[in-house]
């Protein structure tokens, strides 16, 4: 049998329950040993508006949301009209014939299933329309009724016993309908209930939270903002369970300065936000650089500028993350690539912050943060945790003798902690000398500027933040960063399979820039193009600025993640006509 690869979309009115169907389907397939990757597209309103959820399922890890649809289920006309164009020629549309008219002129398999009517007349509990829809899908996928029944029982629909019966009934009606109407898509998706402990189903935000806690994060301050709020909400529950403190502050400025205060005492701290919040944090980020205070700031990017498109995805905060500070205030900027990577990159963010005593900005984005993916459970005994450099305990150095900003070989100085070390000092955002005393002399400013700069630049030697893929003798090189890794690599594999000579270089560290790897890649390949979800080519410009080389660009600004197919097409276009 071929590799399993199905992209299934369910679309309806926001609030009607389509999202739940997608979630349960994704979780159920994931628990059955398959790999899934979800993708939602929501309206900005709390209720109402067209909304869709998509599940791509494979038997190996999924890397992108999927291109055209294998199965589209729509609940009403508006959603039929929006989505039908995205169905593959070989794909299937499942629509509710009482709620919408199918366009007969399309050369597609279109199956009418009167979801609304069956629910009303046969099941009689409107709440179970979800389950009916779910059953239609599992039946079409060729999943046996018993397996589907177990899926429902183990899902949120099984949690409240009083509804379980009606839900199982709805499921049964689905199988009856499919059977009676002879619907058969020829699919036989093999499912097997796995003990889930080795595999986790998480969103990027979930994984990021767990990574932060594993790294030792015990203080979080934040302010709600889409799509970063669920970081705070997840931690609101988890943080107290490990003895930490979580504060919902009055705004983002309070969130970051409270985090700085907590870190000053030695706590590992984090705050998460989206673009508008990051803009407000810029001043305090400069403070943390100046005072050399470890701090992790997560920016879940969304469509900008300004309030922009809160529920859409984009990679357009890179400029701000790298350059958003008055004066010379270098910091570390890294990006996560997929759900699993969110866990490990969160750990690394803390390790970098603690090791280099600096703010670290971790870039995620709306799509990465909210899609669910299957990942292997991290083995915590393998995850390395770094603690910040501190003065010796029981040392006899007095505060008068102690240099908080001592010029060491690696530019990193031991940091005493209140309540713990006798070497008290005053951290200040004014320019200062080694002793932390205010000093505006040219000499002090030059020394401390160099200290802050060199320290950060040396982080470029940390392993694992840049990776090359593809052909050695590539004719075209793609450079990507963060969450576009998946679609780029999928497109790479597809085009390599077709015989194209392509390679990719994926960055997870943006600042400091791994220049050596970048230069080697760029110099070894005739055409190199930077692939990113923004308009001006922010990473491309930045690479050019650091390397003084000329790069091609491939940018998309639809508010949606890359499809592997879009990049595949781009590669073919360049190599055929380029």
């Amino acid at each position, binding site marked *: 049998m071929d590799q399993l690869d199905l992209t299934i979309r369910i679309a309806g009115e926001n609030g009607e329950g389509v999202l739940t169907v997608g979630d349960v389907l994704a979780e159920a397939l994931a628990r059955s040993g398959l790999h899934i990757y979800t993708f939602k597209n929501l309206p900005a309103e709390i209720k109402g508006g067209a909304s869709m959820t998509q599940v791509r399922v494979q038997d190996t890890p999924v890397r992108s949301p999927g291109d055209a649809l294998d199965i589209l289920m729509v609940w009403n006309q508006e959603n039929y009209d929006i989505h039908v164009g995205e169905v593959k020629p070989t794909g299937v549309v499942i629509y509710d014939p009482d709620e919408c008219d199918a366009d007969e002129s399309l050369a597609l398999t279109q199956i009418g299933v009167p979801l609304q009517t069956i629910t009303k007349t046969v099941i009689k509990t409107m709440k179970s329309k979800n389950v009916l829809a779910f059953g239609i899908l599992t039946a079409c996928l060729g999943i046996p009724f018993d397996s589907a029944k177990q899926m429902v029982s183990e899902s949120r629909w099984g949690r409240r016993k009083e509804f379980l019966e009606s839900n199982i009934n709805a499921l049964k009606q689905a199988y009856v309908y499919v059977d009676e109407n002879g619907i058969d898509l020829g699919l036989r998706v093999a499912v097997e209930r796995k003990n889930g402990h080795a595999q986790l189903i998480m969103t990027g935000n979930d994984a990021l939270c767990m990574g932060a806690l*594993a790294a030792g994060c015990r203080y979080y301050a934040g302010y709600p903002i889409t799509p970063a709020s669920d970081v705070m909400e997840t931690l609101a529950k988890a943080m107290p369970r*490990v003895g930490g403190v979580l504060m919902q502050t009055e705004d983002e400025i309070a969130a970051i*300065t409270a985090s700085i205060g907590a870190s000053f*005492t030695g706590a590992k701290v984090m705050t998460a936000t989206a673009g508008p919040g990051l803009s407000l944090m810029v001043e305090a980020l400069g403070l943390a650089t100046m005072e050399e205070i470890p701090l992790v700031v997560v920016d879940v990017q969304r469509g900008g500028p300004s309030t922009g498109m809160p529920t859409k995805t984009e990679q357009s905060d890179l400029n701000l993350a790298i350059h958003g500070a008055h004066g010379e205030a270098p910091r570390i900027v890294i990006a996560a690539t997929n759900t699993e990577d969110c866990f490990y990159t969160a750990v690394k963010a803390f390790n970098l912050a603690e090791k280099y005593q600096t703010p670290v900005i971790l870039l995620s984005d709306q799509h990465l943060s909210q899609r669910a993916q299957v990942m292997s459970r991290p083995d*915590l005994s393998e995850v390395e945790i770094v603690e910040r450099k501190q003065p010796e305990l029981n040392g006899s150095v007095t505060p008068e003798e102690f240099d908080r900003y001592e010029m060491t070989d690696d530019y990193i100085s031991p940091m005493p902690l209140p309540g713990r070390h006798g070497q008290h000092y005053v*951290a200040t955002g004014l320019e200062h000398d080694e002793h932390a005393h205010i000093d505006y002399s040219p000499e002090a400013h030059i020394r401390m500027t160099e200290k802050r700069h060199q320290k950060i630049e040396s982080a470029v030697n940390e392993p694992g933040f840049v990776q090359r893929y593809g052909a050695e003798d590539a004719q075209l090189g793609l450079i990507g960063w963060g969450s576009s890794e998946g679609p780029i690599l999928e497109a790479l594999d597809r085009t390599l399979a077709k015989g194209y000579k392509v390679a990719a270089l994926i960055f997870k560290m943006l600042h400091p820039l791994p220049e050596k790897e970048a230069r080697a890649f760029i110099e070894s390949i005739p055409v190199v193009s930077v692939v990113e979800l923004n308009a001006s080519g922010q990473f491309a410009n930045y690479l050019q600025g650091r390397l003084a080389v000329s790069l091609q660009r491939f940018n998309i600004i639809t508010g949606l993640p890359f499809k592997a197919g879009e990049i595949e097409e781009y590669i073919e276009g360049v190599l055929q006509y380029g």
Partner: protein
Amino acid sequence: MAEVRTADTAKTTAPERSGQAGQSEPAEPAKPPKPSAKRTLKDYRSEVKPTWCPGCGDFGVLAALQRALAERNLDPRDVVIVSGIGCSGRLPEFVNAYGLHVVHGRALPAAQGVKAANPDLTVIAVGGDGDGFAIGGGHVPHAVRRNQDITYIVMDNQVYGLTKGQPSPSTPTGMQALRRSVSMPKMAPYEGVLEGQLNILAMVIVYGCSFVARTFSSQASEMAKIIGRGLDHPGFGFVHAMSPCPTFYNTYDPWKESFMPLPEDWDTGDRIKAIDMAMEEVGDGVFHSGVFFQDVYRTYTDKLQDVYAKAYGDEQATIDALMDQYA
């Protein structure tokens, strides 16, 4: 060098739900003061000589704070003084203790982070009227709402000192400002300040603050006492420390006249009366000194103990256990 271990030991080993975030190792044993000697004001003097103008009221606040610290014999390593930007914001530099001098207006959020991460520390926030009630004004109600055990000393000179004499939120409205001020006319050269004057003491009471007091930098020992009571108060304490700026808005003479203690029989437990008093004294042209209001509510740290009791009971969860929900 930075230390490395693995994540499965990253669990906080904080003893009995101290709420001390992520401090996994014990503190260096406290150095006791010289045998038999209690610490004195001098023990809280740092190497740095104050850079304020001669006659600045902030000298008085500094000395009062140092005295209050000495009376409590606190180990300097357990004291953190947090400030924003302003002449007053320089105070931490002059105290022999930990200091965190942040950006303009953000002393309170930073102080809250310090206290939340290590509730064993004595945390004091200091700053000016501009720092606290102009750019930082949005943080005050929320610091009050959290009722952490922090003492917030606002050094109110009714002017922006460091930036050379612009009006602040507590500058009196209109011509009054002109009469006494050297520099205020720069910003309000025609009719004085057009905006109303905020009554910051009344505001803080209405926010729900559990300790609210006023004191005057020229009344040194009274000020040390008030600050001391603020330090002793379990919860968020607000000290309105009137502290003239002779360089840009010399209010020494009028304030000496208008300061008077609260009535002898003042009931510090009556919030409504405290607000009335604070609102009415403006019209009467007086400043009362003393504790306007005090009541003891549960602090944020206290409440967190209940949260921990529910969240994990006796033993904190492991990260592995947290991840089970995603299996």
